[in-house]
């Protein structure tokens, strides 16, 4: 039935020899339409050729062999891999108890995720990570019982979420709702994140609504999160009330400033979490879901210096329930409570294109009743309370995808003589904690 006219053969040859790629098969539709409109080939010839090219594409190209669900309008695969040398020197508080550390570690982190865009408003995503830790997905090389052991290597599901984006809702410019387990969007300036460790994947529900013109010259973003800490799904009275972490933030941003009043609180309605204040039930601060009502004010000012970006940032916060929290963690009423959490830092440069670098210096203060170890950056003072000190960090971009980073953390106890509160730290910081990290990272 098909007749191979000269123009048709010429067109085939042109497409095959001229491009011979996936793109030629996919993009030839416009050319076929033009040729048929001009009468060079008939519509029937164009359709037969289109079918052949589509068939060739489907059968003989790597992309054509992928069968992606028709509901997916875009599929993104991205991840990162990092190898790290880490030196830890941690001296316990009080001296002589457990938790002394003086060690070198050789570590890696791998994360690989995919997000599927499903039409114009919905997205589904998941991410695999190389460790189960809430605030660290690192694994140590050489940590097994035998040489080259694989016992500690694993692939874990770090994120799994469904996201809804829209515009015009309540007159907004953008709406973002996520449910599942996912990364956060709260403004949180600091090396590795300050009051939310950058490795944390929250579980629950998060919303963001953005207005461009609410205040002239400022973008206003309202963010909220309702995150499940403990489902309390075991049997018993009050057992089914979950313990929640609630975060609310309003960010005002213009070209130079970001100011974001924030509230972070625990809501632990169950008898289990609210009354669990003995060491036997609550081994560490990360499981004490009470006495947290911290107001934070993160601020950042951005400018340029000597042709490079310069940012000065700071956060100041107080826990309205700080006294109760300090006493609960110390297991005694005889404790000086420090309800203040703060940082101040300066960041210079950017490490995005090859040859660029970024330098950061930051000071932190985390009082014994100010916050929760559950959320704090785990690299500074072990992620515990009652610590102050500084961080120095430098990153150099080797290529757009490869970078090298060195970071030094040096933390000290704010109250050196605090009781340890049982066999574990219960949120009480180390006496001294130094950490040196040297990283080589790849992003893809």
């Amino acid at each position, binding site marked *: 039935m098909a007749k191979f006219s000269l123009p048709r053969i010429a067109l085939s040859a042109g497409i095959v020899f001229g491009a011979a790629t996936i793109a030629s098969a996919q993009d030839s539709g416009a050319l076929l*339409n033009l040729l048929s409109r001009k009468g060079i080939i008939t*519509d*029937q010839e164009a359709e037969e050729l289109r*079918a052949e090219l589509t*068939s060739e594409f*489907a*059968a003989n190209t790597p992309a054509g062999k992928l069968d992606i669900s028709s509901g997916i309008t875009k599929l993104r695969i991205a991840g990162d891999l990092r190898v790290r040398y880490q030196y830890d020197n941690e001296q316990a508080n009080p001296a002589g108890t457990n938790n002394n550390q003086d060690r070198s570690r050789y570590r890696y982190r791998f994360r690989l995720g995919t997000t599927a865009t499903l039409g114009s408003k919905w997205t589904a995503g998941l991410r695999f990570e190389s460790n189960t830790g809430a605030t660290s997905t690192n694994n140590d090389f050489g940590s097994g019982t035998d040489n080259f052991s694989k016992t500690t290597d694993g692939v874990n599901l770090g994120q799994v979420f469904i996201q809804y984006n829209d515009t015009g809702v309540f007159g907004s410019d953008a709406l973002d709702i996520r449910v599942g387990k996912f990364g956060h969007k709260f403004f949180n300036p600091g090396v590795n994140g300050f009051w939310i460790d950058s490795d944390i994947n929250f579980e629950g529900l998060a919303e963001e609504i953005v207005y461009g013109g609410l205040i002239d010259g400022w973008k206003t973003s309202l963010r909220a999160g309702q995150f499940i800490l403990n489902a309390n799904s075991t049997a018993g009275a009050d057992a089914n009330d979950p313990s929640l972490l609630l975060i609310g933030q309003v960010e005002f941003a213009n070209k130079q400033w970001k100011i974001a009043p924030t509230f972070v609180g625990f809501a632990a309605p169950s008898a289990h979490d609210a009354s669990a204040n003995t060491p036997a039930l609550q081994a560490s601060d990360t499981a004490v879901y009470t006495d947290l009502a911290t107001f934070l004010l993160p601020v950042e000012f951005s400018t340029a210096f000597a042709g490079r970006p310069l940012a000065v940032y700071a956060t100041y916060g107080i826990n309205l329930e700080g006294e109760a929290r300090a006493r609960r963690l110390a297991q005694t009423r005889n404790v000086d409570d420090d309800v203040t959490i703060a940082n101040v830092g300066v960041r210079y440069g950017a490490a995005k294109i090859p040859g660029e670098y970024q330098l950061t210096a930051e000071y932190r203060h985390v009082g014994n009743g100010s916050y929760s170890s559950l959320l704090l950056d785990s690299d500074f003072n072990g992620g515990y309370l009652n610590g102050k000190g500084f961080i120095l960090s430098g990153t150099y971009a080797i290529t757009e995808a490869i970078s090298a980073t060195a970071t030094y953390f040096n933390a000290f106890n704010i109250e050196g003589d605090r009781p340890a509160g049982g066999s574990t730290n219960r949120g009480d910081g180390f006496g001294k904690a130094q950490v040196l990290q040297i990283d080589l990272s790849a992003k893809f």
Partner: protein
Amino acid sequence: MKKAFLFLLSVLAFVGVVRAEKLVIKGSDTLGAKLVPMLAEEYKATHSDTSFEIAAEGSTTGISAIIDGTANIGMSSRRAKATEMSAGAAKGVTLKPIIVCYDGMAVVVNANNPISSLTARQIEQIFTGDVTDWSAVGGKPGRFSIYTRNTSSGTYSDWKELAMKRRDYASSSQKMAGNEQIVAEVAKNPNGIGYVGLAYINAPGIKVVAIGNALPTKEAVISKQYPFARPTFYYTNGDPQGEAARFVEFTLSDAGQKIVEKVGFVPVR
């Protein structure tokens, strides 16, 4: 002699049974609701031994039927997708398109609607839900009632491709099983809007809206000046064979194309 006669009779009866061929045609509602049944009736007038089984449940079902080998001819108002091509190839099936006629997907509104033309951009906005009220496009205030085909329809995907820049349909849109249902709903609803093939635009209670200045006339469709014009197809496994080939030939013949025109579509020549 008697035995020989009976043997001959049984052979003739057997040949008769074999000779009576059945053509299974599945797919597009656009083609299968009116055009193909009329072609089949006319064809049977000269091929009395041929019977037809026609199922018009959407283009996707027609292409799937060819891939699965459950139909001789698949009707489709859209082109086969790359995934369908590769699914066919995996089963040794080569999907061959044959243009049957041309269609212009016409935008229809209630006959009492004062709107007589819309721009392509307005059409996109209406069907994606960017605008929700007739007043946004110059009409009488009232929320749009959008009627679309269902997801197995080739017209559903062609409309997304040609009129909506591949965006999603408005969440308020209502999916109808066929062109006739869309026409019926729009005729009843003063705020209704939908799209149908050319064979369905003369129903009472509706009217066709021009896209810019272009109405889906025969000339505008064949010259591709009408923005929502498209070819419609039979799909077969390779070149059609036997009775299917004869029916395809009849469809493309002068007699077949006269029926195409009579139904309201645009003939291939």
